[in-house]
């Protein structure tokens, strides 16, 4: 039976491609599926594009492929990456220039048509209210502040690009798992209504889309994480999928990490809402019927995905400007580290009032005590901490107020409680972004999706 091997690329913009080298050199992969876009990464790329119309794609694309192509090309390995971001054509131009400078040749495809920021009025006129998917709120309230709006495209244009001989496929906002589902459909000849097979492919994509999280990275546990071998050389997951849809998960030989029932099931449920209806543009997956057989030796067989027909509507995620965050931080050592932080917080809050800073919300956290666990932190040793940092953040609509908030802190160094340290400059105001998930009929999106293939 025909099979295909796909390896994980990046799991987010800024992730490392170092482990991909092992997958190429000794993992036997034929494809690398690389996810560069988290839910709001496009907001970062939008700012890049505002400064430079040729930008707007994930900047790690070019250095990543310059490093990996000499390993991939002789082995015939292809790449599918959503690193095109808001500008897949610009991404190809940049990559083509880098390849040309080295005398390398490749067929590079782009998938575009996901960017609907300029089409919102048209979509509304066509009958899509674009109301917030969760709250039902009217988009009119944030319309003027929108920074980007992109539809999640599925695997079909990726499969088309591969059928046209592409070595590298650059998409914009494709559903993360589609980056693997596209090559699977292309290689294994599945039809777009073979729901159970597509559901298996979606499962494979979902398990690959967060790189090391499916092979022992971020293994959420109290003691077991320390038993995962050699995180330094952790191998990214690799899936070998046969034409019937069955998948065997593993990683390259002589790498660290672990592929097991435990590490895979943590990723399987990661960022899933209703596990019986995991919606993608191509198929709706029921995780409840999946079977994970741990074969030992970093091999897990994944079978039994249940698929239901694809949804009539595609998800759109838009991002909008939602005010500014001001940040201040100062540390104190023993004695009374926590109490000195708390006293400083009270002083800062009084200064905010005295200076009439237009602050809507204040967040007080104690780094070393509760900044990651919040109200679930255990107060047992709070009064005996060796050291503690006060971190305060405020929400405001006024950028200057956010900047001014950070400037309240340095004064504490000489005139506040004793034994302060760790102050390394004033933090700049940070723009806050709201997220607007919504839906639109696929008939309004898909006719604009374009696959372009170019030899460079």
């Amino acid at each position, binding site marked *: 039976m025909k099979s295909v091997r796909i390896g994980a690329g990046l799991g987010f913009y800024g992730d490392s491609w170092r482990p991909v080298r092992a997958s190429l050199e000794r993992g036997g992969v034929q494809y690398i599926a690389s996810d560069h876009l988290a839910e709001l990464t496009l*907001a970062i790329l939008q700012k890049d594009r505002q400064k430079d119309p040729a930008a707007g794609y994930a900047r790690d694309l070019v250095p990543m492929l310059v490093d990996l192509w000499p390993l991939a090309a002789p082995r015939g390995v292809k790449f599918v990456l959503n690193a095109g971001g808001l500008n897949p054509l610009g991404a190809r131009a940049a990559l083509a220039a880098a390849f040309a400078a080295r005398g390398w040749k490749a067929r590079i495809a782009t998938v575009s048509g996901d960017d609907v920021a300029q089409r919102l009025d048209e979509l509304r006129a066509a009958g899509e209210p674009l109301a917030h998917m969760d709250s039902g709120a009217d988009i009119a309230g944030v319309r003027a502040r929108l920074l980007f709006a992109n539809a999640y495209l599925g695997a079909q244009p990726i499969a088309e690009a591969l059928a046209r001989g592409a070595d590298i496929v650059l998409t914009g906002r494709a559903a993360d798992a589609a980056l693997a589902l596209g090559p699977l459909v292309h290689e294994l000849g599945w039809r777009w209504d073979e729901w159970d097979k597509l559901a298996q492919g979606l499962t494979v994509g979902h398990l690959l889309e967060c790189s090391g999280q499916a092979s022992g990275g*971020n*293994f*959420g546990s109290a003691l077991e994480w320390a038993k995962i071998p050699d995180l330094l050389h952790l191998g990214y997951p690799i899936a070998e999928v046969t034409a019937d849809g069955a998948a065997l998960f593993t990683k390259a030989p002589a790498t660290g990490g672990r592929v097991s029932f435990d590490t895979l*099931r943590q990723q399987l*449920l990661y960022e899933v809402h209703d596990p019986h209806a995991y919606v993608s543009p191509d198929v709706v997956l029921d*995780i409840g019927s999946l079977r994970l057989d741990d074969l030992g030796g970093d091999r897990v067989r994944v079978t*039994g995905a249940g698929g239901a027909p694809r949804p009539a509507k595609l998800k759109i995620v838009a991002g909008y400007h939602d005010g500014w965050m001001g940040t201040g931080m100062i540390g104190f050592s023993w004695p009374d580290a926590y109490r000195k932080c708390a006293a400083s917080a009270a002083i800062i809050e009084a200064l905010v009032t005295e200076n009439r800073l237009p602050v809507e*919300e204040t967040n007080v956290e104690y780094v070393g005590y509760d900044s990651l666990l*919040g109200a679930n932190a255990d107060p047992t040793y709070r009064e005996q901490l060796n050291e503690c940092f006060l971190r305060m953040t405020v929400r405001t609509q006024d950028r200057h107020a956010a900047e001014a908030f950070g400037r309240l802190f340095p004064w504490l160094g000489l005139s506040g409680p004793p034994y302060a340290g760790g102050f390394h400059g004033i933090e700049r105001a940070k723009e806050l972004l709201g997220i607007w998930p919504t839906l639109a009929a696929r008939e309004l999106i898909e006719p604009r999706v374009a696959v372009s293939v170019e030899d460079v």
Partner: protein
Amino acid sequence: MRVPLWRIAHARSGDKADRADIGLFAYDAETYAVLKREVTPERIAAHFAALARGPVAVYPLDNLLALKIVLEGALQGGAARSLRMDNLGKNVAAALLRMEIDAPATLPRLAAG
């Protein structure tokens, strides 16, 4: 006996808009049956009363010996508008592992010490 979840289960959390989601995994089938009984939406909502505004949903997955837990309104509107250090809710799973439940001392992980 009262047992913190970390002794008998493992967990990972993530974010989707204003929603924090947690996968809670029993190390064995016997423990899974206890989790299904004890880790209820009401108990979770009480444990995270200061974190999450919205309702809590729990989906048991017998095939994975796991509970999928979804906390609505838990991330100050979403990661990129959150003021928190843990804006992505990656530590919500750690907080859950500190929750205590009633469990028989005969569960495999407890009996093993």
